[in-house]
């Protein structure tokens, strides 16, 4: 972490960048927040640890409008989002100085709390990122790092950064689950079971829009669900359909553009596994139109703005999907 701070200070000092976009220590050990740093002094509050899960790519949309370059720290998975935004002309490569940072999996405090751990006073992460020592008002606990990781890290896309100016730090292989296993499990259900599953999950939705607003692919200036273009503006969660409409369309709008960064599931206050929508589309796209990784580069045409003459027919897609 200190080397990141030092490098950021260097780049600020020599004028390469006008500011730094990173994470600032929170008031608890697990809640660092995204922050801009404009000076060396401010950087003393910079942190980079297992709880710095936020994908900073989306913040680069606004940062691209500022004078001068912004130094941004991107984890391997974040760089896919950055590339995708680049492809869509939403960020300016010239305005970004990207340090690709290593990642050994990011942590989910909800996973720790789900273990029944309450009243957390501090969480210490050992240097090897193997064990968390959790001090609580009800006693101390230890938790395996792996068990507290975000879902996305268990199916990590890989340790490679897709775009960067320089790389710092090592990444760790964290994959210990099959990426499409959950989707396949649902696919195997009967229609009634599928419906019951999604009904239960989506009935929790409070239409807070956190999934949308954190999503680097959902970067519309004004979402259709906020505009009158389709008579679809709705804040209500009046009944289950609203949520289905919202979540299906949201997933559809990012289909072929979603990098599976997992931010939607991370931020959902109701713990809805929103990635199951996106990942279904990714699985179908891979299957029907060939392997495609959104954000792998900033040029390739997306699968839904492309076609071949002998694409699968929709009814066959349903049968085989």
């Amino acid at each position: 972490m200190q080397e990141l701070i030092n490098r950021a200070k260097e780049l600020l000092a020599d004028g390469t960048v006008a500011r730094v976009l990173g994470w600032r220590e929170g008031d608890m050990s697990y809640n660092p927040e995204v922050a801009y740093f404009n000076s060396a002094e401010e950087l003393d509050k910079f942190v980079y640890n297992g709880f710095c899960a936020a994908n900073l790519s989306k913040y680069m949309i606004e940062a691209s409008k500022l004078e001068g370059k912004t130094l941004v720290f991107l984890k391997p998975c974040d760089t896919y989002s950055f590339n995708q935004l680049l492809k869509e002309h939403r960020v300016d490569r010239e305005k970004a100085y990207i340090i690709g940072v290593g990642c050994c999996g990011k942590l989910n405090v909800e996973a720790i709390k789900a273990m029944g751990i309450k009243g957390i006073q501090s969480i210490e992460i050992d240097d090897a990122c193997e064990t968390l020592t959790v001090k609580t008002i009800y006693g101390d606990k230890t938790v395996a790092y792996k068990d507290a990781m975000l879902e996305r890290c268990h199916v990590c896309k890989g340790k490679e950064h897709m775009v960067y100016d320089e790389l710092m730090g090592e990444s760790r292989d964290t994959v210990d689950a099959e990426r499409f296993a959950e989707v396949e499990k649902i696919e195997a259900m009967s229609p009634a079971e599928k419906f019951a599953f999604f009904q239960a999950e989506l009935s929790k939705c409070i239409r807070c829009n956190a999934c949308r607003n954190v999503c680097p692919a959902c970067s519309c200036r004004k979402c259709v669900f906020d505009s009158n273009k389709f008579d679809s503006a709705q804040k209500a969660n009046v009944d289950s359909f609203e949520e289905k409409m919202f979540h299906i369309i949201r997933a559809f709008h990012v289909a072929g553009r979603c990098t599976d960064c997992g931010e939607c599931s991370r931020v959902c206050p109701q713990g809805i596994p929103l990635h199951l929508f996106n990942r279904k589309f990714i699985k179908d796209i891979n299957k029907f139109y060939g392997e495609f990784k959104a954000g792998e580069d900033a040029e390739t045409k997306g699968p839904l703005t492309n076609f071949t003459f002998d694409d699968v027919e929709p009814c066959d897609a349903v049968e085989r999907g």
Partner: protein
Amino acid sequence: MPMNEEFKPKIVAFCCNWCSYAGADLAGSSRLAYPADVKIIRVPCSCRVNPMFILRAFEKGADGVIICGCHPGDCHYSTGNYYARRRMAMLFSMLEYIGIENGRTRVEWVSAAEGVKFSTTMNEFVSKIQSLGKNVRLGDIRCKN
């Protein structure tokens, strides 16, 4: 709805102006009957059909939605139906995935010369929807009174 009342499904058919709408016209001028439950909306091309329209139809009480366009390769705009095909493949697969009965949505390519196919397709689709019954999973309860 009383048990013995006949189920009259609401079915929305989006037809592209150049092929399928003309196919429907031909079905009409050939007097090839299909149930009155089917109501056609004319769009320039199947690629004009936004998934939002389909979900909207279900929200407001439709029991089935069918999209008809020119056969692949024959699109008036050369490529429109290719995009429509991908979009609908994705959407339909997603609807099936969240537990919507397979068969409430359909895409069919109908040329201007295929009046018979248009009529057969609509007859088939209506009986499929008849067998699936009322759309309860995608509708908005506020619209059901």
